């Protein structure tokens, strides 16, 4: 299991290859990459700054992953979340899960993303032509996370 909170970009291909190469029992790898969009809520996004709560972030991600491992038959998992200043098209987050079978890999990957969105202490601030603004939490993210309870 790899969990990283970092300023540096990550190499999606290298991360996925490393994850599946660790075990020849892997039959399925499901992955999600979240990226900065150039337009959000109708406004042009110049840069986005990601703040987090050092210590609690890593702890809460580990708890989310552990919960997924209890629910599905997983082989391994990688979660990388960037912090600091990002630009449109930059990758923000990678969640990748391996399993013998695809159903487990897909479900766990989506579960981890839904919980990351609602439980891990990250906050996004966008620079738009009208000034800086904190991104508002979405009700749809809470609903997505509630599906799993």
């Amino acid at each position, binding site marked *: 299991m790899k969990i990283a909170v970092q300023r540096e970009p990550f190499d999606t291909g290298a991360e996925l290859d490393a994850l599946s190469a660790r075990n020849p029992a892997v039959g399925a790898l499901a992955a999600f990459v979240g990226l900065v969009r150039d337009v959000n809520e109708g406004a042009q996004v110049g840069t986005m700054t*990601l703040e987090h*709560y050092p210590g609690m972030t890593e702890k809460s991600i580990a708890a989310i992953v552990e919960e997924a491992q209890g629910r599905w038959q997983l082989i391994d998992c990688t979660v990388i979340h960037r912090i600091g200043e990002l630009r449109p098209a930059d990758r923000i*987050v990678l969640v990748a899960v391996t399993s013998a079978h695809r159903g487990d890999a897909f479900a766990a990957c989506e579960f981890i993303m839904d919980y990351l*969105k609602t*439980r891990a*202490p*990250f906050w996004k*601030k966008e620079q738009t032509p009208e000034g800086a603004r*904190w991104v508002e939490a979405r009700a749809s993210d809470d609903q997505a996370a509630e599906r799993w309870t």
Partner: protein
Amino acid sequence: MKVKLLYFASVREHVGVASEDLELPDGVRTVGALRTLLRARGGSWQTAFAEGRVVRTAVNQSIAKAEAGVAPGDEIAFFPPVTGG
């Protein structure tokens, strides 16, 4: 008793402080009581911790409700709903 308070994101910007060490008065032994204490500072504190405003609390890096207790040395953080991922 002494606790460490942390403020993140829009809450930090509102109150203008990232962290502080605070000696809690007797009678402030829960998260809810601590929030009332901070609100009573008035001004931007009152706005940041206003009744209708959603501010989450974590005690020692775990989400805590208003009725959760606070103990000496606790790290107590206040922040808006998360928006990562």
